[in-house]
């Protein structure tokens, strides 16, 4: 093992070493609460239960469990997706756990602790003629415009459609995932793209309505987003997340939402390649 790779490996390990018991930052300890904000239009990660109007979801459950182990409560707030990163920057939120993808473009001022495997996925209405993802070349594909998916679609189209002489995918913007599914139902778009973690829930809600095409066409991770200088908070949260993975409570929460297959073996930092 070369000296360099040894140092890098050691450094990575150190970054996640649970050996040193990291402490909760003073301000949070004093407040006795974590301030978290979510974009609650993203079932099953975070959404309002239509029956009870309560804030529920995989991220909510994970965060609640982490907070319980930290001995603090959570003050929840909601915000549009595009406001998540600014909320972190302005310290309105202590960290972001809201179905946000770990991307290098976002790592300028933040670090991600990856906790869920994900990737953009094509899906269509069940009766649609498309059989494989290649049938989508030249078709209208929609996604939420405030996410990173428009860029992913463009990249996929260039690599898979245009490179093979086929017409490019036509991207159609939507305001949020509900708006996108709405457009799909109305026939304004032929296919839609959402994070693979949202599709089991959507299919369960409207049984038989949607059909997934292929696999997630770009693999990545959802990450808990921390400010770059907030190392203490990041380390203590990572410790507890690792513990949850070890004792099975993490898997239990994922299974509750049908996302057991998206589990990660351990929390990783900035591991996504996009």
């Amino acid at each position, binding site marked *: 093992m070369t000296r360099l790779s040894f140092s890098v490996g050691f450094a990575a390990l150190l970054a996640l070493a649970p050996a040193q018991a990291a402490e909760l930052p003073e301000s949070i300890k004093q407040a006795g609460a974590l301030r978290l904000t979510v974009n609650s239009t993203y079932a099953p990660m975070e959404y309002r239960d239509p029956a009870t109007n309560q804030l529920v979801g995989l991220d909510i459950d994970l965060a609640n469990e982490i907070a319980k182990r930290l001995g603090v409560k959570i003050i929840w707030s909601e915000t549009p997706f595009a406001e998540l990163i600014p909320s972190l920057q302005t310290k309105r939120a202590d960290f972001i756990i809201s179905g946000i993808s770990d991307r290098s473009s976002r790592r300028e001022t933040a670090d991600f602790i990856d906790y869920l495997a994900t990737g953009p996925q094509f899906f269509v209405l069940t009766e649609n003629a498309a059989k494989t993802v290649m049938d989508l070349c030249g078709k209208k594909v929609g996604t939420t415009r*405030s996410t990173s998916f428009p860029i992913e679609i463009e990249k996929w189209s260039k690599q898979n459609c245009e490179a093979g002489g086929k017409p490019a995918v036509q991207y159609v913007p939507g305001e949020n995932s509900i708006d996108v599914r709405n*457009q799909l139902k*109305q026939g304004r778009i032929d296919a839609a793209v959402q994070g693979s973690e949202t599709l089991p829930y959507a299919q369960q809600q409207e049984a038989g309505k949607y059909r997934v095409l292929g696999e997630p066409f770009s693999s990545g991770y959802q990450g808990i987003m921390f400010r770059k200088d907030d190392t203490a908070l990041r380390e203590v949260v990572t410790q507890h997340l690792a513990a949850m993975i070890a004792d099975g409570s993490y898997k239990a929460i994922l299974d509750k939402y049908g996302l057991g297959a998206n589990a990660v073996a351990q929390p990783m930092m900035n591991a996504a390649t996009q």
Partner: protein
Amino acid sequence: MRAAPTLAGGFPDISELTVARQAHWRRWLTAAAIIVVLAAIGRAFANGQIEWVYVGRFLTATAILEGIVNTMVMAVLAMALGIVLGVVVAIMRLSPNPVLTSVAAGYTWLFRGTPLILQLLLWFNLALVFPTIGIPGLWSARAVDVMTPFLSALLGLGINQGAYTSEVMRAGMLSVDAGQYEAAQAIGMGRLRALRRIILPQAMRVVIPPLGNEFIGMVKATSLASVIQYPELLHNAENIYYANSRVIELLIVAGLWYLLVVSILTPLQMLLERRFARGSLQIAR
């Protein structure tokens, strides 16, 4: 001849004295205080976490300029639609026919009684109610193909505006002296001809200043069409900050452009007001 009346004595003659200039010291103090506050705000903005270099960079970005053009195009077209509808509905409202009055009143109630953003969303999602639209036997099309963001925005903004404009027009028409309508009737004009040639032209004088104001409001209302994907200024600014996370900087860019447009339109609107609201002694063609 009577002598000039004598004045009662005791009052000093101050006709030679001049009035001293007032010090207005309180005004100076208030002005100074306001300047200090404004300077502090300005300094806070300058030193705040705004990356002004991004504001400068995107101020004339292609997407932004296209957004402004789309904003103005939509504002003009939607306002035109709103005025046409407003005139028609106002005439219906003042009709002797109770069916027409009820329809007009219903239209005004419906489109003033619901938020504009809700109306835009309904128009855009019309296909959920009517997947196909058309005239039976003549033409039909998929609603999603017809209700493009452009058309949805135009109908949403224009029909909503019509409800407000119709009230302005109605007030304008009622403000025309009743004798005008009688004189028109006396020379044999029917109701519609009298409205068209005699009442409406006179109502316009009263109506154009508030309509100018409504137009300025319309320019800003077009920003609501961003949620139905019409590529106006705000929508395009949002797309930029969705990609580069520079939320405040891009909102400032959009805000500056809206301010610029409104700052140009406002003195024009005042000129319009002065020209049309001149007293009845100065009616020019």
